[in-house]
C-alpha cells in the first residue's frame, strides 16, 4: 500500500519557535484538548448510558431519573433478556451471515479485480462502469424484486437470502479497493513469473493473493460493521425465529401491542454489541489504519 507521509510532523516544529509564540501554541493546544475531550464525551456518552441502564432496576428506570447514576446495580435484566429472547442463537446467526458474506466479498472482490486490473480485456471499462452502479444505487431497490425471486426459487428464509444482496452490494467497493491496490504491484513481478512459465491461475495463487492480505483485512473490517448490523435485508427475507440475526432479535423485545421491557431490552442490546465491540477494540489499530488508507487512495 502506498501510504506515504502519514507520520505526524508537527511536534518537532515547536523547537524553532520564539517564546511568546510557543506560549500561545501551548494555550491553543490546551483549548483544543478540552474541545476534543468534550466532543468525545458527546460521542461516547450514549454508549456508556446503554451499559449503565442495563444494570438499572426497572423501578429506577421508570420512576427515577433515567439519566442519573443508578441507585442500585442489578443483573436481573440480563437474566430476563436471555429468558425472553434467543440471544445466543441470534449472535450465532449474525456470525454465520457476517462470515459468509465477508468470505464472498473478499474472494469474489479479489477475483474481479484480478480479471479487470491484472488480466484485462476489451470490455473492462464497460464492466467497471457496470460495477459503479452498485456503489451508487441504494440497497432498498433490491428488496421487492429479490423477495419475489426468492419466493420463486424457494430461497426465502435462508442464510443465502441475506448473504447474496449484502455481498452483491458490497462487491463493487471491494473490487475497487483491490484494483487500486493491484495497480501498484510492479509489472516486473508478473513478467518474471510469466517467464518462469507460471499461468494466470498460479500467479493469482502464488503472487497476487499473498500480497493482498492487507487489503483483505481492510475489506473485511469495513464490511463487517455494516453486515453485522444489517437490519433491512434480514427484516425482509428472514421469516422464522431460527434465522433471526441480532437486529431482528432486538426487535423481538417489543411486545404485543407495543409493550417494551426497557431495561431487559438494553441488557440485550449490550450483549449484542459486545462481540463487535471487543473485536473492534482488539483490532482497532488495524481497522482505523485500513479504513483511512482504504479511502484516501481513491
Amino acid at each position: 500500500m502506498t501510504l506515504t507521509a502519514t507520520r505526524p510532523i508537527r511536534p518537532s516544529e515547536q523547537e524553532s519557535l520564539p517564546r511568546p509564540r510557543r506560549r500561545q501554541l501551548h494555550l491553543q493546544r490546551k483549548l483544543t484538548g478540552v474541545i476534543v475531550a468534550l466532543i468525545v464525551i458527546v460521542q461516547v456518552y450514549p454508549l456508556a448510558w446503554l451499559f449503565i441502564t442495563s444494570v438499572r432496576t426497572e423501578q429506577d428506570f421508570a420512576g427515577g431519573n433515567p439519566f442519573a447514576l443508578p441507585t442500585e446495580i442489578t443483573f436481573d435484566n440480563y437474566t430476563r433478556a436471555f429468558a425472553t429472547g434467543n440471544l445466543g442463537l441470534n449472535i450465532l446467526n449474525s456470525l454465520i451471515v457476517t462470515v459468509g458474506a465477508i468470505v464472498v466479498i473478499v474472494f469474489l472482490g479479489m477475483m474481479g479485480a484480478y480479471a479487470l486490473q491484472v488480466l484485462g480485456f476489451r470490455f473492462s471499462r464497460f464492466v467497471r462502469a457496470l460495477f459503479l452502479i452498485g456503489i451508487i444505487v441504494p440497497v432498498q431497490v433490491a428488496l421487492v424484486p429479490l423477495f419475489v425471486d426468492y419466493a420463486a426459487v424457494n430461497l426465502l428464509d435462508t442464510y443465502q437470502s441475506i448473504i447474496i444482496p449484502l455481498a452483491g452490494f458490497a462487491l463493487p467497493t471491494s473490487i475497487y479497493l483491490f484494483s487500486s491496490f493491484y495497480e501498484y504491484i510492479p509489472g516486473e513481478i508478473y513478467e518474471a513469473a510469466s517467464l518462469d512459465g507460471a499461468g494466470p491461475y498460479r500467479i493469482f495463487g502464488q503472487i497476487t493473493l499473498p500480497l493482498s492480505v492487507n487489503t483483505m483485512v481492510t475489506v473485511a473490517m469495513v464490511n463487517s460493521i455494516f453486515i453485522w448490523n444489517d437490519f433491512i435485508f434480514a427484516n425482509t427475507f428472514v421469516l422464522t425465529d431460527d434465522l433471526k440475526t441480532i437486529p431482528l432479535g432486538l426487535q423481538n423485545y417489543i411486545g404485543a401491542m407495543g409493550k417494551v421491557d426497557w431495561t431487559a431490552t438494553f441488557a440485550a442490546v449490550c450483549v449484542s454489541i459486545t462481540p463487535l465491540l471487543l473485536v473492534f477494540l482488539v483490532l482497532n489499530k488495524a481497522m482505523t489504519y485500513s479504513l483511512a488508507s482504504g479511502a484516501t487512495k481513491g
Partner: protein
Amino acid sequence: MNTTRTRLALAATVATIGLLLSGCSGGSSGTSDPTDVSPEGEIVPREISWLLSRPADGGVITAMEQIADEYAKDHPGFALNLITTPDRPSYIQKYETLAAANKLPELFDTDATPFAQKLASQGTMMDAEALLKDLGVYDDYRPAALNYQRFDDGSLYMVPFEFQLEFFWYNKALFQQAGVEVPKTLDDFPALCTKLRAAGITPIALDGQDQWPLERYMAYYPFRTAGPDYVQQLKKGDAKLSDETGEQAVQWLSDLGSAGCFQDGFSSTGYSDAQASFTSGKAAVYNIGTWELNSLATDALDPSVRDDIDYFTLPVTTDSVTAANEYVSPSGIGMAVNAKTYDPLVRDFLSFALKRYPEVYAATGALSPTTNVQTTIPDNATPLYQRAVDQANDVGEKTAMPWDTQLDPTSNTRLQQELTLLLQGEIDPDEFIGTMDGVIADNGPKAFQ
C-alpha cells in the same frame, strides 16, 4: 462480450421471471376444499407450525404449549411449533409476504382484514364456522367473540382465542382533585380534559407511537351515532367522512386535540411510558383492554394509586344508536387454518385443543372466548379484577370494530398519520376529511371488490 447480446439476455431473464411470477401468483389456492372439515384418512403425527402474533409468555401461548404437550403424549411424533412475532406491524408484514410466497404454515394468525378476505376467497383458509360446528364447540363461543372474527359477509374463517373488554381506566383521586365527574356522553370529554389540564393533570395517557390506540378514538363517535355499519360502508367508499356522521366524529377528535386531552408529545410516547404515566398517578385516564388486568387490578399496581383506580366503559352520545353495554370487545387476533395443509392430523389436534383450551386458559386468569368456563381470579387481585371479569357477561350484541382491522392498508396507514396531525392541530377538520375521503376513494373500493 457483446453488449447487445447481453442486453437481450437480460431482457429475456426479466421476462421469464415475470412469467414465473404470474404463474405462481395465483398458485396459493389449496388443493383441498375449504369446507371439507372432516377429511378421511389416517392420523399421522408430525410437527405442525403456528405463525402467531401474541406475547411470548402470555396466556394463549402458555396454554397451547401445555395442550400440545398433552396431545403429543398420546401421539408420539407430534409437535406444535409456535413462531411468534408479538410486534403487530412486523407480524402483518411477515404474514402477508409469506402468503405472497405461498409459504404459510398449518395455522396462522390474522385479523379480519381485506387481505385475509382475499386469502379466504382464494380458498387458502378453512371455513371456521363449519369446522367449529363439526367439532361440536360452536355453541360454546360467545357470539361477540365470533362476530369480531367475521368478514363483512358474515362468513367466519378465524378462531378466537381470547375475549377482551376495553375500558377507560381512571384515577378517582385525580378526578376529585380537578372537580370532574365520569363523563356521561362522549361530548363531555373535551370539557373534562380542559378541567384536568387546568388542575395540572395529564388528562389521558396515550400510546401514540403504536398508532392503534389513537385510531380507537376515531372509531368511538361513529359507533355511537351510526352503529358498526358505518365503517363498513366508509371503507368501500359508500359512506364519506364528509357525511354528517363523519364530520361530527372528526370535529369531536379535533376538540379532543384542542382541549389538550393527550399528553404533550403523545405521538412519540410508547406503550410502557403511557401506562407508567397512568399507574404513577400523573395521568387521569387510560384507555386499555382487560389484557392489562394483571398490571391494573392486582397488587402489581403501585400502592399509591391502587385504591384510586376504577374504570368506566365507552360513554354514549345523546342520540346513540348503540347501547351503553356495547363497545370495543375484541376477541384478539384470530387463528386461521391453512386449507392446503389441512389433514386428519390437524383436525384431530384442533379437536383436542379447542375442547381443552377454555379450561386451561381461564385458569391463567384470562377471559375465555367461550362461556363454558369460569375465569380464575388470581390471589393478588384487587376487587376490580372480579368486576371486570363479570362485566364480560353483560356485553351487548354489537361490537365496535377497531378501524385498523377494517380499512385497506393504504387508507389505514394514511388515517393513522392524519389522525396524529389532526390531534396535534397541524391540520383542521376540513383538511383531514378532504384528504381521507380522497385516499379512501382511491384505495378502498379497489380493495373490497
